[in-house]
């Protein structure tokens, strides 16, 4: 039998096969987080729809009706709602992933498992909210009488890319947050800022042409445009989206290694 070896100063490897070995636990974490998430709220899972819906109602009134922000030939509420649920998905996954290590620190000190399943599980729970609000969006689309195009098949692709983007930052932030709790105070501010640096309540087209390349470096720009493209056939995915995806991959890989490095120190740092 091949032994499990515990050795001082072994090289930094990702050991991703461990995630597969512990898939039962990953699944259990997702189920438990999901069950607990809305347990105390009487409206329960409805909040996943009510939250973006109420934000959209406010934006539709102020920006859509009063300021008359254009919306790429789409009804403004539909335009904003489609962007908002994507953004919420990203924000929830990122926030939850960033807090995952701190949130489960009582387990980290007592039981061994590959810690990476914590941000994975937490981010995945945001996906459940996303799917539910997507059902609401589908209702809205039907109500407005939009046809569903074949491009809908790209919907899963963009969903996965959103999760991937959220995790690329989440891996970094969860480990940094464990060492310095400042992250949990700074992050909400950046998420709010990001909402306005992404075409959610306004279209990319209102920006000066000369600046659009810089704007497109934000990977969420391409993602939101991509969702609108596959849902409504409108908006275009900027060419630089692929460049920003490359950037995300680099950040993601770096995050994996950094996470693995911090993982070893978790129980020595407290």
């Amino acid at each position, binding site marked *: 039998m091949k*032994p499990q070896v515990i050795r001082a100063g072994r090289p930094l490897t990702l050991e991703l096969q461990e995630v597969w070995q512990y898939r039962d636990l990953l699944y259990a974490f997702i189920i438990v987080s999901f069950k607990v998430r809305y347990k105390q709220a009487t409206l329960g899972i409805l909040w996943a729809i009510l939250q973006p819906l109420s934000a959209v109602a406010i934006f539709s009134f102020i920006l859509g009706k009063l300021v008359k922000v254009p919306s790429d030939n789409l009804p403004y509420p539909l335009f904003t709602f489609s962007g908002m649920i994507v953004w919420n998905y990203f924000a929830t996954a990122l926030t939850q992933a960033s807090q995952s290590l701190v949130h489960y620190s009582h387990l980290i000190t007592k039981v061994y498992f590959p810690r990476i399943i914590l941000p994975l599980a937490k981010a995945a729970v945001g996906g459940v909210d996303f799917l539910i609000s997507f059902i609401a969006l589908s209702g809205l689309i039907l109500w407005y009488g939009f046809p569903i195009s074949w491009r809908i098949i790209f919907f899963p692709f963009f969903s996965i890319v959103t999760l991937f983007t959220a995790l690329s930052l989440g891996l970094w932030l969860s480990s940094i947050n464990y060492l310095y709790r400042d992250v949990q105070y700074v992050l909400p501010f950046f998420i709010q800022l990001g909402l306005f640096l992404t075409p959610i309540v306004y279209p990319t087209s209102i920006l000066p042409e000369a600046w659009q390349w810089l704007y497109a470096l934000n990977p969420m720009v391409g993602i939101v445009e991509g969702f609108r493209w596959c849902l409504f056939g409108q908006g275009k995915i900027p060419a630089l989206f692929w460049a920003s995806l490359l950037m995300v991959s680099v950040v993601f890989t770096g995050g994996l290694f950094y996470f693995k490095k911090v993982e070893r120190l978790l129980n020595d740092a407290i």
Partner: protein
Amino acid sequence: MSHLAIRAVGLGKAYRRSGEVRYNTLRDRLSHYFWRPWDLFRQTRSVLFWALREVSFEVKQGEVLGIIGRNGAGKTTLLKLLSRLTEPTEGYAEIYGRVSSLLEVGTGFHEDLTGRENIYFNGILLGMKRNEIKRKIDAIIEFAGIKDFIDTPMKKYSPGMRARLAFSIAAHLEPEILLVDEVLAVGDIEFQKKCLGKMEEVSKGSGRTVLFVSHQMNLIKQICHRTMWLEGGRLQAIGPTLEVVDAYEKALLGSLSRPTFQSEFRGKAESFYWYLLNSDKTPHTLCHLDTTEIAFVLDVFEPIYAWHYEVNLFDSAGRLLWSGWIKSLRQVLEPGRYEVIYKLPLLPLSPGIYHWRVILWGECERFVWECRPEFVVDVPNYQHFFDEYAGILNLPYQVKMNLIVSPESTPNLPTQPQNK
């Protein structure tokens, strides 16, 4: 049986104790470097503290190894290294087989989930497979004895029920190697026996290897084939249980004259050290049922006015069994080291683990100390042999039964009441 389960070679773990401050927030670190920029380029004066050093040993498959030693001797650090919770600083260990570690019972229990849901989560967390739990869940519920509450959220459970459920899950784990920290110290004694019985049964039956940390020498003697004694992070001895435990207890008695104070807490007063004055075994284990003297050391750093001192004795279920107090409403307790000695004609407790709590009341403040280690009572049990009929008092008694009236001597007396 001669297959290896664990081989550790020169295992060591050092913690960095920096001479400087520890940073909790980025701001602290930034402001530190702002005021002392040269620190950025200087190796901070950190002192390495070796929690464990040069520990080498082998454990064979199916062996139950006890780990003993004082607080801070490195017992928990060793378990943490073997269960991969921290990385060793030097040396290595080879582990042959699936490991489950129980450093705490009920890890990951969630208040809002039902007992059944918690069994699944906790079981998977401790290394069971989903199918394995599905197969065992009825046995787990049965063993815990909480069948009626299994689909109620855990927040409605009493602490006792939680502990039973947690132990029951733990008892049904089937790893090849089980690492157990002093978790059995909680929960009621009856249930502990059940768990230990289960543990023994499994380790005998399927060749499971168990590493077991405990302060309870009677428990160690009962279940461990071999025992390892750690002292100041180093391996002092490893060998047959009786020899090692004996040597350890002699060493403990020898060092009694200079009690060590380990608490980090510094307030107006401090008290956590206690010992038995006339113990013939260890300073924290009571082995007889006659006059007992218990001493509590109290350090006072600042005068305390209108003080009142008391010690409370709790059993492992948290019931208050006895308290002894001294009161002085006007006088000042001046700084100094005090020793409070209680002399009891007897302490009729049944074997098990008990807990001392010291409380010092000041004019408008209260200091509470939970004493460590726990108070172990290892005396003959005179109680009923069924746990459910045993009470709190464990008194040696003599009993005789005299026939005072017999039908032969007074033939007119009816032998049975006549119900007519």
